[in-house]
């Protein structure tokens, strides 16, 4: 019999529909994989009962001759940034340890309504702040990948959605939710040889997602291939009156319209993304990606996005500023941890609670955000950053006069070892150099695996598209996927 854990979302869905295997068999097989892979530390909480209950419902619906839901029989992982009713939701922080929501986030509810089940809550960088999963209060997530250099250095799975990327790459889940503020879906996908798409800002409701930087935060799927991402995104997206920035637009049938035929499409290559010190292998992969897209029928044009170099510094004003405001809610009064030293007054309770509840990176970003928003500095930092953000968005708009899509590398390096960059916050921030500009502009972007580097580690290519053109992004990504033929998997050591 097929090992169902080797299958992706579409194959599981189709196999359950046709009766090749039952949904309960699928759920049990993945539950066993999850519980046998605790060395990776990808999960904060495992929820086998949730997955099995959804599977039983799928099998019962099939036995009764009902039409199965779009994700019936598909168990997934849920990033622990989405509030799940009755299941601890921590944002990988001590602050929210033990927090058990009495409500369900819109995105997770949509997935359950589509028939999916939950295998567990996935680890992440604390409050989604990080690029390596080293800021989680619940310990580092370890990538299932290892360098082929004889050493066994534990590698970063990327961040912040590192539990999601590690679990998918290790075949513990066929798909997972991620969230992306400056690259938190795409960079971990690139580091682990999987696919992930950040849709247009507003496609997926932010309601019930623990907030980091509200003008940037956007949920999206991570999975093994483009089709599976399209299926997941269809289930996750859609208008939600509970989110004031939700897009009131119909959700396209992205899966049905998948096509790797790019004839008539123009793909731009932004010259400013050729950064100093980029490894030759990434340059070579980028050129390979250009050739693949040409082969798929696309015309390649060189474009300029002149403000690219200012995207990261603008991001590191805007994101911490919004975070310092959003995280003001953790006061030790309404939910989460409270630290009340003997004889402390209310103000001292706030300060003690926040010192104990937030990790060092979260505190660092709150302090930066508070500083740049403080009296006398607001215009020089925050207003200037929002003006630069306008210029970055205009760069993309001008590029769309010349092309339909952009092709870039996803990250400036392959996965690094845990501990290798954690001592220098700036070196860590530079990981997001290729993903942040599209976040600031709110436009859809996807990472797909392109190949392996000399150490045998995955490298990703990024497709960026116009607002609302997830279809174009998915289709170009599919064209790359078909030509890259990426089938490499980490050897199981866990």
């Amino acid at each position, binding site marked *: 019999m097929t090992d169902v854990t080797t299958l992706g979302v579409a194959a599981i869905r189709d196999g359950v529909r046709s009766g090749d295997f039952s949904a309960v068999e699928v759920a049990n097989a993945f539950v066993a994989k999850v519980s046998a892979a605790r060395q990776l530390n990808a999960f904060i909480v495992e929820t086998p009962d949730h997955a099995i209950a959804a599977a039983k419902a799928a099998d019962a619906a099939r036995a009764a001759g009902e039409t199965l839901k779009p994700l019936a029989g598909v168990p997934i992982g849920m990033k622990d940034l989405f509030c799940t009713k009755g299941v601890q939701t921590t944002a990988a922080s001590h602050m929210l340890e033990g927090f058990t929501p009495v409500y369900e986030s819109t995105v997770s509810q949509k997935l359950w309504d589509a028939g999916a089940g939950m295998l567990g809550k996935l680890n992440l960088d604390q409050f989604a702040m990080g690029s390596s999963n080293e800021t989680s209060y619940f310990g580092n997530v370890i990538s299932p990948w290892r360098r082929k250099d004889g050493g066994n250095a534990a590698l970063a799975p990327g961040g912040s959605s590192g539990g999601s990327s590690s679990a998918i790459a290790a075949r513990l889940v066929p798909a997972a939710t991620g969230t992306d503020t400056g690259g938190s879906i795409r960079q971990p996908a690139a580091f682990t040889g999987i696919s992930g798409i950040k849709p247009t800002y*507003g496609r997926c409701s932010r309601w019930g997602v623990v907030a980091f930087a509200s003008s940037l935060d956007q949920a999206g799927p991570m999975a093994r291939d483009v089709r599976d991402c399209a299926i997941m995104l269809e289930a996750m997206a859609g208008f939600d009156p509970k989110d*004031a920035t939700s897009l009131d637009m119909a959700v396209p049938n992205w899966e049905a319209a998948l096509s790797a035929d790019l004839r008539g499409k123009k793909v731009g290559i932004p010259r400013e993304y050729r950064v100093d010190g980029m490894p030759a292998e990434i340059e070579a992969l980028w050129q390979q990606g250009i050739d693949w897209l040409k082969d798929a029928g696309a015309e390649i044009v060189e474009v300029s996005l002149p403000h690219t170099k200012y995207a990261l*510094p603008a991001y590191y004003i805007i994101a911490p500023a919004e975070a*310092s405001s959003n995280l003001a809610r953790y*006061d030790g009064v*309404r939910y989460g941890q409270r630290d009340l030293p003997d004889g402390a007054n209310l103000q001292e309770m706030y300060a003690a609670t926040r010192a104990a509840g937030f990790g060092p990176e979260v505190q*660092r970003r709150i302090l930066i955000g508070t*500083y740049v928003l403080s009296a006398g500095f607001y215009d020089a930092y925050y207003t200037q950053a929002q003006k630069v953000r306008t210029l970055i968005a205009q760069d993309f708009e001008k590029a769309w006069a010349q092309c339909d899509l952009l092709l870039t590398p996803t990250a400036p390096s392959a996965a690094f070892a845990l501990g290798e960059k954690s001592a220098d*916050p700036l070196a860590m921030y530079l990981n997001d150099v290729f993903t942040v500009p599209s976040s600031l502009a709110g436009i859809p972007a996807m990472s797909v695996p392109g190949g392996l580097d000399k150490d045998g580690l995955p490298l990703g290519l990024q497709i960026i598209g116009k607002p609302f053109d997830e279809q174009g992004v998915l289709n170009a990504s599919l064209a790359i996927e078909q030509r890259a033929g990426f089938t490499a998997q980490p050897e199981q050591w866990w």
Partner: protein
Amino acid sequence: MSVDTATVKKVASLARIAISDADAERLAPELNNILGWIEQLGEVDTSAVEPMTAVIPNTLRLRDDVVTDGGIRDDVLANAPLAEHGFFTVPKVIE
């Protein structure tokens, strides 16, 4: 622009995060390093540019002025570190 330990302490106080003198000493150079890097934004001529307010054009919606929520006191209090008599409980704020 350089951040000294006194500024770090002031900002931490604004952010309601208790920090020790040692923390402030450690954080000052870290924040200076990050802020120094951020300051390159000053090179960009933005004199004719409006700050971004909405990343994707979207119209604010109106809805009927009706109550859509409420009557869930116990849910609201369910995760409180301390709740008594149907209220959040905090240290005494009036002497």
